[in-house]
């Protein structure tokens, strides 16, 4: 049996490789995703004061540090048993929306648009954001500007774009400066125009990718996402809803502290990324997906007018439950627009300038769970502390983890359809990487716990010994 190894999946956030196994006739027999990094935050944080957890766990990820800051702060709020001031809730959501905009822009423009604009089969030497800048400068500049806007929201509120220390257990450490509010509001029309322009562009080209749409992880699964009490999309304060592939709600309004009744985790022998599953269905039947596509499948509505108009069109074109992972891209763009609308709504609330933004307390509970929607899906931080507030135990369930099983299945589907072991071309392997990119996984996040596609084919004997290596 032969094996193709994509040794480092490129244009993704983290470290992963893919093994594709071929049979004697060169047909794909199976595919395995290996996530190759582990850091062990759950273990090495033992003994640290709980209030250090936000700044330590932010270092899980430089793309969505705000997600970890917020989930961690919410777990700390629970340990302090405080209800944080309403304005602090709004400010945290505002910060979070800034992050959604920058992270979704990064995923779409910087990482995935080279495939869509230059082509899956185009020259890999130029199939990157600089290549887009050269061939489609207007779109690349839009991407840079939209990401910058999101980062500026974060910088305006929190003083730093990456790993800021503004969010704290109990709230945030400084109120909003009216000048910052005005500056963000002034930039909003341009940012919204980019979001609309990009949606129009994407809707115009999406039909060119019929084959990719059909085989990019186009398989039924359950979906999970956070919603508010009315079933609308919620990024900061929602509770978990599971919807099945037919669109039926199978569990709803699950609060953070009950997550472990519904979500279990298994270890895979081939990966440093554990695989969560829907506990009532067991493993491996309980596979579900999270992230932009899942959120839009799960929620009844976004709750903002422009995103809701886009959502209606999305469902009208692709069905009430949209299954193809290719449409993560589309869903991501709708959510970027939603994030911008939320930023506008929150900033126009006069209460946002209130100076009461932090609650103070000590340890009032020995356990706390914080849960939010990170850009890539549900993020859960679960801490246990002793009476002095020293960490005794932590569990972190990170967005990409939930998608682990689904990404594995999607890779297999894409490989079986596009990869021909007898007539191997780079573009075939790029499609396998591209389905991973569609999920926008953050393997940096997910393994709290790089750029090459060497066309290396290993010829293995039946017992697994290496007979020959061919380089393409």
């Amino acid at each position: 049996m032969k094996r193709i190894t994509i040794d480092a999946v490129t244009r993704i956030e983290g470290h992963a490789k893919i093994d594709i196994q071929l049979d004697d006739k060169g047909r794909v027999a199976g595919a395995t995703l290996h996530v190759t990094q582990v850091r062990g935050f759950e273990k090495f944080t033992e003994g640290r004061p709980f209030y250090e957890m936000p700044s330590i766990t932010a270092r899980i990820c430089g793309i969505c540090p705000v997600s970890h800051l917020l989930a961690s702060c919410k777990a700390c709020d629970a340990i302090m048993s405080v209800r944080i001031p309403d304005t602090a809730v709004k400010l945290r959501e505002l910060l979070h929306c800034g992050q959604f905009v920058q992270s979704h822009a990064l995923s779409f423009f910087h990482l995935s648009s080279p495939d869509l604009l230059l082509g899956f089969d185009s020259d890999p030497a130029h199939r990157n954001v600089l290549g887009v800048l050269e061939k489609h400068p207007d779109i690349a500049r839009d991407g840079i500007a939209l990401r910058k806007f999101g980062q500026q929201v974060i910088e305006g509120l929190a003083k730093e774009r990456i790993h800021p220390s503004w969010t704290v257990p109990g709230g945030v450490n400084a109120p909003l400066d009216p000048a910052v509010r005005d500056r963000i509001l002034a930039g909003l029309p341009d940012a919204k125009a980019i979001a609309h322009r990009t949606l129009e562009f994407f809707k115009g080209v999406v039909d060119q990718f019929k084959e990719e749409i059909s085989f990019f992880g186009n398989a039924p699964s359950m979906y999970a996402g956070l919603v508010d009490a009315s079933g609308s999309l919620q990024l900061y304060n929602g509770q978990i809803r599971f919807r099945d592939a037919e669109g039926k709600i199978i569990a709803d309004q699950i609060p953070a502290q009950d997550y472990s009744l519904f979500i279990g985790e298994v270890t895979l022998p081939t990966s440093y990324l554990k695989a969560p599953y829907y506990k009532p269905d067991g493993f491996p039947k309980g596979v579900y997906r999270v992230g932009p596509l899942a959120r839009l499948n799960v929620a009844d509505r976004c709750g903002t007018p422009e995103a809701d108009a886009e959502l209606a069109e999305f469902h009208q074109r692709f069905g009430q439950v949209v299954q193809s992972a290719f449409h993560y891209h589309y869903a991501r763009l709708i959510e970027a627009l939603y994030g911008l609308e939320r930023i506008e709504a929150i900033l126009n609330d006069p209460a946002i300038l209130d100076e009461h933004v932090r609650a103070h307390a000590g340890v009032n509970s020995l356990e706390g769970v914080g849960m939010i929607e990170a850009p890539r899906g549900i993020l859960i931080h679960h801490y246990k502390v002793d009476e002095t507030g020293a960490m005794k135990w932590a569990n972190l369930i990170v967005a990409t983890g939930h998608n682990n099983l689904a990404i594995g299945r999607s890779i297999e589907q894409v490989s079986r359809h596009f990869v021909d072991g007898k007539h191997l071309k780079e573009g075939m392997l790029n499609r396998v990487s591209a389905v991973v990119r569609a999920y926008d996984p953050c393997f940096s996040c997910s393994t709290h716990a790089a750029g090459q596609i060497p066309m290396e084919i290993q010829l293995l004997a039946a017992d697994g010994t290496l007979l020959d290596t061919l380089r393409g």
Partner: protein
Amino acid sequence: MKKAKLATLWLDGCSGCHMSFLDIDEAIAAVAQKVDIVYGPLVDAQSFPEDVDVTIVEGAVSNQHDLEQIKQVRQHTRLLVALGDCATTSNVPAMRNPIPVKKLLERVYVEGSDDHARVPTDGVPQLLKHAVPVHEVVKVDLHVPGCPPSASAIGFVLGELLEGRMPDLKSKVKFG
């Protein structure tokens, strides 16, 4: 004008240094005029090229794969820049260093598993005993500390290196 060859490498870090590089925003277009990014998580290079002018490395050296990669990269790059606190001091990845690797992995994959508990070994690189800074395993030509270093510091470093000068980082960077 012949463009310089720039590579970026992401070892055991959070990608925050790469994000801070992207935070130079529009200036990336000016950088693109002067360099080709020939390797790294932002591009699709087939393998690490032979003669790279500058490689910027983020993250500590934590596993066997990191170690092999950084040695190979050092051989094929003229100037190696350690970007950020993890590459410079091993920082957060080194917080695991007092804990035996076996204990760490068992906590995550055996205790932390509802089913199929076992430590992954198939197709994943072994962790080194300690996460170490880059300069502990290969020669580093320039250290740029920060968690992450600011976009302006990164822009300054690139600009100076492209002009053929070794950047003077006094007062431009700090740890943390």
